[in-house]
């Protein structure tokens, strides 16, 4: 074995020792702090009653249910927000992106204003504004706005026709509120609107950049072959731009999942806010935060795997 190789191994062994030593030091310090504060550690609290309920929950939850179920409900709330959010953001983003590339000057200007306004204001600030609008400026539920037959918007949220106990129900004003159908809370609506608009602004910009980065010869050649501008865009520019845009767009959709954690600021009970509540009640910071980190890492891995498959599919020419 060469001396160079030996020294490399020695250096790496030192790094491993240093990292292990640091971790051991952190572990003993942490253990002594926890002992001083009388906090037990371990994941056994997950099976004990949570002792709290959530403002809303995709999984029905009582205070007597286990903490594990509360975490699951938090995760379900995150998914209930982020999955439709990702679909809507993609749709709106593509629409605004097309607007950004349109020949029509007014449409282009509007799309540009949309992107500039929503990309340059912090998402948290936007969420706070949507929440204020939905809870303070809207009428009370006895004077709800009727957006469409059976669709009512008020301080207490959005009422929609949906399947209830009595089959398919259409909401109707009744006394001081609205009866029947499904209800989306202001917290959920504020999160959904904010996340969709913010992410859409980014997706629109990615799409525009991808089309404009194509060599100009592509467009000229298509026009020279007698294609109309619209055919050129749809058949020549867009399929190529999709390939360039796909990785950054999927990364934006993953960002939407991560940004769903801002729910804690307006009181929508997502995974992070459930972890925060549980942390405050049990004091088990390490356990609660490692659950959050593990779940998000798994979501990121899953997202990366999906986007990898999509990219391979697109690169093979699957999208036209």
């Amino acid at each position, binding site marked *: 074995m060469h001396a160079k190789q030996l020294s*490399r191994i020695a*250096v*790496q062994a030192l*790094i*491993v020792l240093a*990292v292990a030593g640091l971790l051991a030091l*952190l572990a003993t*310090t*942490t253990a*002594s*702090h*926890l002992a001083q504060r009388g906090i037990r550690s371990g994941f056994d609290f997950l099976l004990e009653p949570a002792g709290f309920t959530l403002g809303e929950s995709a999984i029905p939850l009582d205070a007597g249910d286990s903490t594990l179920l509360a975490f699951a409900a938090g995760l379900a709330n995150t998914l209930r927000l982020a999955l439709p959010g990702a679909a809507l953001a993609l749709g709106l983003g593509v629409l605004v992106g097309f607007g950004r590339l349109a*020949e*029509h*000057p*007014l*449409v282009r200007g*509007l799309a540009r204003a949309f992107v500039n*306004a929503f*990309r*340059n*204001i*912090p*998402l*948290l*600030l936007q969420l*706070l*504004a949507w929440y*204020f*609008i939905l809870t*303070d*400026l809207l009428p009370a539920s006895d004077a709800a706005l009727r957006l469409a037959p059976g669709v009512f918007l008020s301080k207490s949220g959005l009422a929609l026709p949906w399947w209830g106990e009595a089959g398919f129900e259409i909401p109707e004003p009744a006394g001081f509120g609205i009866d029947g159908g499904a209800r989306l809370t202001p917290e959920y609506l504020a999160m959904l609107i904010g996340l969709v608009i913010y992410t859409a602004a980014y997706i629109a910009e990615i799409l525009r950049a991808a089309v404009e980065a194509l060599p100009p010869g592509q467009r000229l050649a298509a026009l020279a072959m007698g294609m109309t501008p619209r055919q050129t865009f749809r058949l020549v520019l867009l399929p190529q731009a999709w390939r360039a845009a796909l990785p950054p767009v999927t990364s934006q959709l993953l960002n939407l999942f*991560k*940004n769903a*954690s*801002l729910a*804690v*600021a307006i009181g929508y009970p997502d995974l*992070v806010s459930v*972890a*925060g509540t549980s*942390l405050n009640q049990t004091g088990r*910071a*390490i356990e609660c*935060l490692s659950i*959050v*980190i593990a779940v*998000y*890492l798994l979501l*990121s*891995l899953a997202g990366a795997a999906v986007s990898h498959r999509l990219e391979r599919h697109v690169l093979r020419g699957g999208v036209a």
Partner: protein
Amino acid sequence: MGTVLAPIRRRLFGDALSTALTLLVVAAALVALPPLLRWAVLNAVFRPDAAACTALDHAGACWGVVAEKARFILLGRYPGDESWRPIAAAGLIVASWLAVAFGRIGGRAALVALALPPVVAVPLLGGGFAGLAPVPTELWGGLPLTLLLTAGGMAGALPLGIAVAYGRRSKLPVLRGLLTAYVELARGIPLIAALFVASFLLPLFFPDGVALDMLWRVLIAIVLFAAAYLSEIIRGGLQAIRPGQLDAAAALGLSPWQTQRWIVLPQVLRAAAPSLANSAIALFKDTSLVTVVSLYELTGSLGLALAGDGEWRPFYLEAWLFIAAIYWLGCALLARISAAIPRQP
């Protein structure tokens, strides 16, 4: 005249779809603009007069809320008779951004000009020397805190990001593996989770007797979080350097270290400037999240200023627009810096 207007007319009224879109946009503007103008200007109250604002009943904007609450929103809970210090700190940081964005500073000088003001701002805000009254970090807030977290976060994250990017090109698989794990971990979690770690876990890690203020713990979290993203940008830049550059440098007799220092890194930073600026913009906006761990920067101090005040709280939207405009201007300024960095000094 007709020939000049012809292409515009074609784009606005060229076919049925264009005409329909033009009419739609114009109609929407006619419906929306007059009430907006009435609300924002004609009916608006500009004096900090709560009674007049309440009498408006939202028929007009109450810009008075900005005049009434400006000090609190912009400076947070910082002691009132020491206001010049946060103003000077914020002024320093903004001046450095303006100087790089619009001045003639470029290259290395620009990086130094951007990194120095947050370092100066800390003793200025903290005091405790030369007759400056000490002000604990819990009281720092508003715009100076937003700027300090952004400029300080970037100043800490860039060197760390460069080091991590080089480390991931090392020949030592253990080092590469550890750094890759760190980068993927930081990029996989939301910033809020990192801030919770800073808030709840970091104090447990420090030995007895060492207590770091929340501000420093949050800054550590921000630096570690941002450095992971920056290291990916730098790594991409390093991969884009053609091997011929290294050969040429070696042929000129430059040592490997000199090659990196004078040939490779300047090119990488120049090429990465737009991406680095995007990261700075993202961080500038993300500093708003520190409000969840009770640091009251611009967004947090807006909430603090209005939350307990029933008289002014109804005019949240007006105060909100004031803050939003500040963030918007900050983002525009940082975007201009990305164009300035690649310039030769």
